[in-house]
């Protein structure tokens, strides 16, 4: 397998996009190409484009987004495919880009993740996301992602002693991190006492899906992110000699039952465990080698559960680690330095690519105020469905 890495990154400001969906996706792509020094037209060397998007056709009314993007960017005749894998579409697209280059089918891939969630109302958005649930066993009964997360949280509260306050602690941390990230959707500091004080909590942090409150889940965001992948052995030939190369040391995905009720233990996130283990094995790294991680905290409980399933903290101890500040930027295992999905935002198909962009910044040492000192190895977990399709990746600057 050829060595594959990232030499260019791009990221729009998450939130409510002021430009059309295709323009937003192109903005991230162009930034990544500029970052790497990639050219368009007859100087283009990108031979493959993957775009991860869950609902570009359904929500933004733009289908065939990869084809549109290639033409708009003037990088024809690069091959173009759109990847739909739920909220894990972004990291799936990166995985396919990695495989294309590692196998020798491609030398240079542009991977874009993009989603326009704010084009519809919150109800329509929630319904659209819920369409990835089981089509006969879950969706018709009104199940939504927040309802599953609520039940999941309740189970972990009973099993491991997770408290509502623990979710708030993680939320406050991620909001603080987002204040340091110029591309984050929400850049407001949040004070723990203000979202946990029983006298005012109903107004400041209302219940959404019991026991989950507003600050226990991510906002609805538009956004796009992009990375340019290249075969290390081809960097000189393609004109990228000397560009910082962040290696994709391991990338893998795993699946679990679609119907959550069919899982032997619904508190286990098997696909997170298996995908991260495969990524560790592929990279030759272990959880203790990870210096910084971006975990898929669409709900704050997921940051706790994923931190345990990936081995960053012992089972049942993720919430204790959060209480002790271990997952803060200057803690012993920094998690979601970008602000996470909670505050950076969660434009579904863009999220996995965005997580990788943050890790690349950390490994380049360009994350500015949220820089984790001496970061050499980073982990991302991009979570699809309610854990039935998960992509994990390990990146290094070594």
């Amino acid at each position, binding site marked *: 397998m050829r060595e594959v890495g990232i030499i260019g990154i791009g990221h729009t400001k998450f939130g*409510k996009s*002021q430009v059309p969906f295709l323009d937003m996706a192109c903005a991230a792509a162009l930034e990544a190409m500029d970052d790497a020094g990639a050219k368009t037209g007859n100087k283009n060397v990108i031979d493959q484009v993957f775009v991860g998007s869950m609902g570009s056709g359904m929500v933004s009314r733009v289908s065939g987004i990869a084809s549109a993007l290639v033409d708009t960017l003037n990088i024809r005749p690069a091959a173009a495919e759109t990847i739909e894998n739920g909220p894990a579409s972004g990291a799936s697209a990166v995985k396919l880009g990695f495989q294309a280059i590692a196998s020798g089918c491609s030398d240079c891939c542009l991977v874009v993740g993009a989603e326009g969630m704010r084009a519809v*109302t*919150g109800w329509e958005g929630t319904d659209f996301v819920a369409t990835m649930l089981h089509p006969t066993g879950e969706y018709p009964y009104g199940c939504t992602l927040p309802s599953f997360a609520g039940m999941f949280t309740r189970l972990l509260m009973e099993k491991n002693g997770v408290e509502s306050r623990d979710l708030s602690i993680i939320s406050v941390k991620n909001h603080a991190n987002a204040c340091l990230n110029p591309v984050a959707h*929400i*850049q*407001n*500091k*949040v*004070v723990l006492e*203000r*979202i946990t*004080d029983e*006298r*005012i909590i*109903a*107004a*400041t*942090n*209302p219940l959404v899906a019991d026991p989950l409150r507003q*600050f226990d889940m991510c906002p609805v965001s538009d956004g796009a992110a992009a990375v340019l992948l290249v075969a290390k052995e081809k960097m000189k030939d393609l004109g990228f000699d000397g560009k910082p190369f962040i290696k994709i040391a391991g990338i893998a995905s795993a699946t679990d039952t679609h119907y959550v009720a069919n899982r032997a233990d619904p508190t286990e996130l098997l696909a997170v465990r298996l995908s991260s283990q495969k990524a560790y094995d592929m990279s030759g790294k272990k959880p203790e080698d990870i210096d910084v991680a971006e975990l898929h905290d669409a709900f704050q409980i997921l940051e706790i559960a994923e931190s345990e399933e990936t081995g960053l903290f012992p089972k049942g101890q993720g919430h204790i680690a959060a209480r002790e500040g271990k997952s803060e930027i200057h803690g012993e295992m920094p998690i979601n330095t970008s602000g996470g999905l909670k505050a950076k935002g969660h434009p579904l198909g863009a999220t996995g690519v965005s997580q990788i962009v943050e890790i690349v910044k950390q490994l380049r040492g360009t994350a500015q105020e949220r820089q984790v000192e001496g970061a050499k190895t980073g982990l991302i977990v991009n979570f699809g469905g309610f854990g039935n399709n998960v992509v994990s990746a390990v990146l290094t600057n070594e």
Partner: protein
Amino acid sequence: MSVLDKYNVELNEMEQKLRPPTIGMVPYEPKVIPLTTGEDMLVREAKPEEIPVVLEAIKPLFDHVADYYDIVAARIYTELLGMLRYRVQDEYLFWGLINGELAGIVNGRLVNAKTGMSYHTMTIKRGARVGAQLFAAKMEYHFDFMNQDEVLIVAESPNGFRRWMIEYELESAPDRPHELGGVPTYVLTRALWEKHKGNKNVGLRPADPEIIKANEVLKPISEIKV
């Protein structure tokens, strides 16, 4: 020259005829709302001399199409001007203030002793539930200060519809006229207010004197970013 001078008119016989009668309004006791950001927002009645400052400050929002700020700003402008020029009956106007800086605006009026009419809620500081808190404060004024039975409400934006019509479970009343155009009217009844106010209406009274002092003067508004 005072900022109010240009609105002064001779209170002659004609002007007396043009001014609406009043059914009498009680003062709104200021309260402190703790925000998620850690800041404390004081909700208090606007002072007449502050209104021209806000009129000027919101003018740039007339071109801010996103989230319906244009129409809300334009309508608030006329409502505030109507208040200054004595052309609206029994209108009230509250500011949400953080250290003297404008965080939000709410207003409305009394239709009669038992029925109120909500006008607008405009959030200046976004992302801290300021709008939701200010809307609750003005409903509190109608029900708990003015002892009214119902408030007529319309929404210009999806955000407003979600916050008021859905979250308060407002009753649809398409046959009840509302002054803000021909959009469908909804009603917050006393029963609905009593049902929801425990979760929606917060604030600490008596307001901390230090916080009142910090918000005694509305600071100049150089630019509103929403």
